[in-house]
């Protein structure tokens, strides 16, 4: 025995599903817009130790619409215990794919008071900022307090505290 669906039910179902399709398309467009307009602006205090050298610095990350920068300023402590101020700024371009941020550094400017700090500085940073033709993939996981946990290959590198806009 064949059960026939009344025509008005079919039409109602058709219109409802059409509206559902329009709504989901609109939602996806809005999600993309929100993702494109997202600003990542955060600061991380970090300490790094390699052998007997160390770096105590803050890193500020700013990402917006495919471009960004990372600024690092702090003190390098040489193996003999001398403190040297260091400052570094690197520009980057990026694109987002889900949780993955595909980053390419476009250049950097680092200031040291002592030339041979440069070699140690690269080792002390938990991520590279000097390679300009390499794509790096980082994952930015937003935490409950709005901070970002920055991972590479799933490994936690740095916790970056959100900087609130006034």
């Amino acid at each position: 025995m064949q059960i026939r669906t009344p025509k008005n039910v079919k039409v109602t179902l058709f219109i409802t599903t059409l509206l559902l399709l329009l709504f989901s398309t609109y939602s996806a467009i809005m999600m993309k817009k929100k993702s494109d307009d997202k600003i990542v602006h955060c600061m991380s205090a970090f300490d790094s130790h390699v052998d007997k050298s160390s770096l105590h610095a803050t890193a500020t990350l700013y990402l917006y619409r495919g471009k960004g920068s990372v600024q690092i300023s702090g003190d390098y402590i040489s193996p003999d215990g001398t403190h040297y101020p260091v400052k570094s700024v690197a520009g980057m371009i990026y694109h987002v794919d889900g949780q993955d941020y595909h980053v390419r550094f476009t250049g950097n400017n680092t200031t040291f008071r002592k030339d041979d700090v440069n070699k140690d500085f690269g080792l002390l940073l938990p991520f590279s900022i000097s390679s300009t033709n390499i794509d790096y993939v980082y994952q930015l996981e937003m935490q409950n307090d709005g901070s970002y946990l920055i991972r590479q290959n799933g490994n936690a590198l740095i916790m970056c505290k959100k900087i609130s806009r006034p």
Partner: protein
Amino acid sequence: MSDASSTADQLPPHTGEPQLTGIVKGHAKTDGLAEHHLLDRLLIPASLIFIILSAVIFAMGVYRYDNTYHDDFSGDYVYFKAFSGCEIYLNKQEALPSSEIQNILNAWPVITSDCSKLPLRYLTAYHNHLRVFYLSCNTKDKADRICRSGHLRMLK
């Protein structure tokens, strides 16, 4: 269509023009009915396709653009022990033997420095890379927490 041809076959031989007009009208009517019937039959499959498309579009949107929020990182760590006034937690994914972790803690007292201000230490130690990443946090309160990031590289 077969209904329409059978209707034409049953017509008497000398019916004249009015009957012919009736036949043409009958054809148009049955064509319209068939078209209408076809549309009627397509409503349900079209609705099903719309439902599937809606789900796919929405899922793709969430996957690509709206999945940045995650559970707190502390869920990835498991309690190890108290050491020098700090509570040490270890990354579940990088499980090193306890003795090796103990050696790292002994060799690098900097990992457990400043425990009075930031007593929680979340350690990720990489066996192959000779690197340790650690987070030093002041509280377990997920909504209001201060953390410093730490990085050690051992040169051999």
